[in-house]
């Protein structure tokens, strides 16, 4: 289905699973960039791990021929997002300008409907006030809100970086260039497994890679129209 180009940008991520080594550099970078507190071991055991990116690990085969497969999962920035219509206060809303799902923290009243309706389980609820072990409280990113208790949060594709780059381009009176915006995860990925850009910019790296023969989307049959494209990994594609 050909997508109609509308106003703004269509921010898109490509995850090349052939290149992902499961190193979690993206997870660490995301925590640092987005003021995400680190959960304690106890909270993780209770299922309250609050990473905006999680690396799902799958074992394949029987010993001794065992292989590990990794699947980084973060907010899929759905075009038809299940989290949006269920929010009673419009805190989870669709940005027409950026074509992203945005969580407006100061609107959120913490019903958690959005998190329960998300098929990807990528929304995180703040059960307590955020805590940063010293000296981590001194490295908080001033461009990102520190979310208080009772607020739902999730991956934003580093909206603060998108906005900063757009504002800079606007001040300089030029269009935004491909590669100018890089979310923290993309910037930190050592194997270049994550590729980010505007799909509506024909010359962007992302637009040139779509469609790809290895391409698939997570739970595509649900009709959520994710903005994250995964490229299959595995032997059949090695060295491609």
């Amino acid at each position, binding site marked *: 289905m050909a997508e109609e180009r509308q106003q703004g940008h269509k921010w898109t991520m490509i995850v090349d699973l052939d290149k992902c080594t499961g190193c979690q550099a993206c997870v660490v970078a995301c925590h640092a960039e987005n003021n995400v507190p680190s959960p304690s071991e106890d909270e993780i055991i209770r299922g309250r791990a609050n990473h905006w990116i999680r690396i799902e690990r799958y074992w394949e085969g029987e010993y001794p021929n065992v292989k590990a497969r990794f699947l980084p999962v973060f907010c899929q920035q759905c075009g038809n997002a299940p989290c949006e219509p269920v929010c009673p206060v419009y805190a989870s809303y669709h*940005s027409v300008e*950026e074509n992203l799902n945005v969580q*407006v923290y*100061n609107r959120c009243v913490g019903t958690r409907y959005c998190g329960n309706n998300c098929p990807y389980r990528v929304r995180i609820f703040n059960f307590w006030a955020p805590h940063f072990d010293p000296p981590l409280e001194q490295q908080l990113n001033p*461009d990102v*809100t520190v979310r208080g208790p009772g607020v739902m949060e999730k991956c934003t594709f580093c909206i603060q970086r998108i*906005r900063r780059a757009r504002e800079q381009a*606007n*001040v300089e009176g030029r269009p935004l260039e491909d590669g100018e915006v890089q979310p923290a995860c993309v910037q930190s990925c050592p194997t270049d497994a994550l590729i980010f850009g505007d799909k509506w910019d024909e010359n962007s790296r992302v637009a040139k890679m779509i469609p790809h023969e290895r391409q698939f989307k997570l739970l595509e049959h649900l009709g959520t129209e994710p903005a994250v494209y995964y490229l299959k990994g595995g032997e059949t594609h090695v060295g491609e």
Partner: protein
Amino acid sequence: MRRLASLSLRQRLILGVAVVGAGALLVALLAIVIAQTSAADEQPLAFSHKTHAQNGIQCQFCHTGVAKGPVAGIPSVEKCMGCHTYIATDSPEIQKLQGYWERQEPIPWKRVNIQPSYVYFNHSSHVAAGVSCGSCHGAVAEMTVAKPVVEMNMGFCLDCHAEQENKDALWDCTVCHR
């Protein structure tokens, strides 16, 4: 009232003290709030925007970041001393300034315009769009003490954003909230 009448003298006394205490607490809280909102009046130095503007100094001479990035910025003591090593050196306020300079301390200015922590404002975008400083900050050039003129709430921002050509883009939540 019948319930109150059934209370013993001691219980009534406790109730009375509690009511008076709660009232006193409320007054104290109110006093703190008022003190905080009027803190802008008590700057460490009696700096006058009016005097500087009358001498032909442009806003951007001191607030250098205003066209370059999100933050307009407050000038360093070094910037003040660039002129005040020679100008008005016998004024007591300028001698206070020289004190900061000699002790190598920054001046602990009190913030005048305050935004909530979940609002991200970019000065440079507004300067590039031709918004004058006065549209939000009022006639600072005529103020001896800088004071907030407009209540910079969401309604104030959106009133102006709604009038712009690209109002759909400026109406987006991500413009200010991240």
